[in-house]
């Protein structure tokens, strides 16, 4: 087997020069990966709500059609909300990309294997659900084109990025949900957000 990608490198590459990108970071390791790439008010990191990351991305994408929206989540988190891929496929938001950082493990609970370790192909699921583009990325060369797609390509876009199953240090975002919500809304909507 070839050398697997490192999840922190993947998150850093996809979030480089993020500009006005809006980001939902799914529960667990992907939230820590996005924080390691740089805590940002326009990233909403999840400490709960397993299975809801992609739907939160859809809510953002429908409410802000002029902005690009990225959901970065894990394979376990995505598997809990597979129905959301069908809903996104039907709604077809052009500005939404869902990227699964796929280590084939439940990383926070003892590295138990997920279904993707047994052949479940999330990109194929997304394609079957009506995503405009769906791919599996296994090499560094795939990351720059994926980053461009997140910013430019009409979607909905989906990518499963296969990464090594390794335990790496925690890099934690703020925990207070109300704070994370308020800072996101202020950064996106300005002070007016507080008067809504």
């Amino acid at each position, binding site marked *: 087997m070839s050398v697997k990608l490192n999840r922190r490198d993947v998150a850093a590459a996809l979030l480089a020069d993020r500009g006005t990108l809006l980001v939902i970071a799914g529960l667990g390791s992907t939230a820590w990966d996005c924080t390691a790439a740089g805590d940002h008010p326009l990233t909403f990191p999840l*400490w709960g709500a397993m299975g809801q990351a992609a739907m939160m991305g859809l809510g953002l994408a429908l409410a*802000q059609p002029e*902005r690009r929206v990225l959901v970065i989540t894990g394979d376990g988190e995505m598997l809990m909300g597979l129905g959301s891929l069908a809903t996104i496929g039907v709604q077809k938001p052009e500005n939404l990309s869902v990227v699964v950082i796929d280590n084939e493990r439940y990383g926070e609970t003892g590295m138990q294997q997920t279904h993707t370790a047994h052949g479940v192909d999330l990109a194929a699921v997304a394609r079957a659900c009506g995503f405009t583009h769906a791919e599996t990325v296994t090499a560094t060369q795939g990351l720059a084109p994926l980053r461009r797609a997140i910013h430019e390509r009409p979607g909905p876009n989906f990518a499963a990025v296969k990464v090594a199953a390794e335990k790496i240090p925690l890099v934690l975002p703020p925990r207070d949900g109300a704070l994370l919500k308020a800072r996101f809304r202020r950064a996106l909507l300005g002070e007016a957000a507080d008067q809504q």
Partner: protein
Amino acid sequence: MTLDWPLEIHRVLSQAHVRLVGYVPDAGHKRLIELCHADHAMRAVTLTTEEDGIGLATGGWLAGERSVLLMQSSGVGNIINALGTVRECRIPLPMIVTMRGEHGEFNPWQVPMGQATPAVLEAMGVVVHPVREADQLGAAVDAALRLAFNSYAAVAVLLSQRIIGIKSFQEQAGQ
């Protein structure tokens, strides 16, 4: 004379600038769902599970949009953990729940969740407004929207089976 309560609820939603309508269909919500789909100022989103409506509403609110979630009482069982996120993040979440397992239910499998619905919602910190009369629905939904959006709260209007008035499988299938 029958009051056109779905039209009244739609009017109240529209007046409150609700733009995102997540739903899992229910016979009792049939006409309201149709009205929301026909309204070009609203985006009605069919969900595969009620829980997804909480993600949708959360994302919408992060981006400045007002949502409502429509479901049947059985769906309340599917949203419990997601309600924790709403509470922790103080996301405004109005829900309109058509009750089953309650007034003259014909399906015994609906009774356990229907009977547990108010207690389950309250246990998760949701403000519960039961409504048993059609002519009180508009005002109840209006109050629920105000409470939700002005106080960043989760509020559920429980629409009694008495108002919906479906008494048999045959009647529901014929809708």
